[in-house]
């Protein structure tokens, strides 16, 4: 199940684990990503809280957690190759995996059609 937030994060839900990244549109707005600050495994995140920071040449942007839960994995490949966020935002450019603590929060998120409609 693939869901989107209004803030251009996506999450792929598999059981109680969600993989989180930013959308193609978001990476396009950022431009060349040069650094990603990832959450530490074990960190407890609130829905909407700052989970990661993505730095382009120009600016730093915060990535918010789409759901509440505990970080179970961070994509270390991004520390070596931050440009994966640009080249494969929906794939190898994922940021972290989170164990969802409040599954009802998923209900408020958008599916792909709704997200695309929001972007206009």
């Amino acid at each position, binding site marked *: 199940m693939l869901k989107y937030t209004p803030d251009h994060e996506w999450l792929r839900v598999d059981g109680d684990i969600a993989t989180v990244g930013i959308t193609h549109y978001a990476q396009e707005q950022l431009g060349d990503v040069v650094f990603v600050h990832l959450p530490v495994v074990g960190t407890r995140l609130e829905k909407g809280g700052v989970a990661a920071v993505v730095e382009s*040449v120009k600016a730093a942007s915060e990535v918010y957690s789409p759901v509440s839960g505990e970080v179970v994995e961070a994509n270390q490949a991004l520390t070596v190759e931050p440009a994966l966020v640009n080249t494969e935002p929906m794939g190898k450019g994922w940021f972290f995996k989170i164990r969802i603590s409040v599954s009802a929060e998923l209900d408020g998120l958008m599916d792909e059609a709704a997200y695309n409609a929001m972007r206009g």
Partner: protein
Amino acid sequence: MSIPCSSSKISSRAPALRTPLYDLHRELGAHLGPFAGYEMPIRYPLGVLREHLHTRQAAGLFDVSHMGQLALRPRGADIDGLARALERLVPVDVLGLPEGRQRYGFFTNDRGGILDDLMIGRRSDHFLLVVNASRKSTDEDHLRAQLAQSCEVVPLRDRALLALQGPAAEEVLADLAPAVVEMRFMDLRDIRIAGVACVVARSGYTGEDGFEISVPSEAAETIARQLLKNPKATLAGLGARDSLRLEAGLCLYGADLDESTTPSQAALDWAIPKVRRVGGSRAGDFLGATTILTELTDRPRRLRVGLRPQDRTPVRAGVLLFADAVQGEPVGKVTSGGYGPTVSGPVAMGYVAAAHAALNTQLFADVRGRRVAIAVTALPFVPHRYKRR
């Protein structure tokens, strides 16, 4: 996630000004963003990283038409009289500036602070100034208030400004105007480009060899398209311009310079020649001279320095600097910072207390509550490659 404010949608209150190349930017897919009241290209589809690297390897073409171009025309044709009057506002050698040459300088206030930094060029019968976009009206007011007796201040609103920068800039421009090969760094000449009368300076804001080309607005697009026919030239936006000037250790007004920073604090002593210093034949007699001349001999209380973060974290403007990894009061502040594509890592500049300004001093930057090691480093980060002879 928080999207940075460089999208193509502009939501400023005042309608944004546009340069004569606006349609070309749109046609070529630029991401436009607000800058100093203008809607400017921040980057093109190539992206900041590649635009930056292409400029260092070949040539980048920048639209800098937002910058202020001002002609100072002497009343009564006394250009040396005007030079002397202008020296009251800038602590540089204007009188000794030969025709066809330009020089870097800054307007100072009576406290020794910097009102703006600028290029001053001497033409046959007037001075040509290029000032920062954000300071245009302040500068014009200042010039009119101070030099009303000596000159007429004429903003050249019908001219665009193109910067062609990089090791291939000469080759690209010489295809259209062979005479530019005879120019050296800081020369200023009348040159016909594709049949159009232009004023060309061999200078720039990237640390590379290159040209700044003042062209009549109506010819700007034609000339830009002609230059871009050469595959060695690519359009580059303000994003790349910023990372290039940062690597070159060049100041951005409003970030690294403001009315409270003095020339010595900003490490711009080199721009003040002997003739304007104590013991020189035209020493002092400029706004803020007492403070500025004292600081040339007594070390100022704070200094602009280069800063190299020790890990990969970019350290941006506004970040506070500390001497200790955990505690204590700040000893400085970052004024420009980001990622340097040529350096291939983060670079920054900032002001630190004189006691912490020595090269290789280890400091700590507070980035989102975490203190990251950062070292005082020599500027520039990338050596300048001007064509001096």
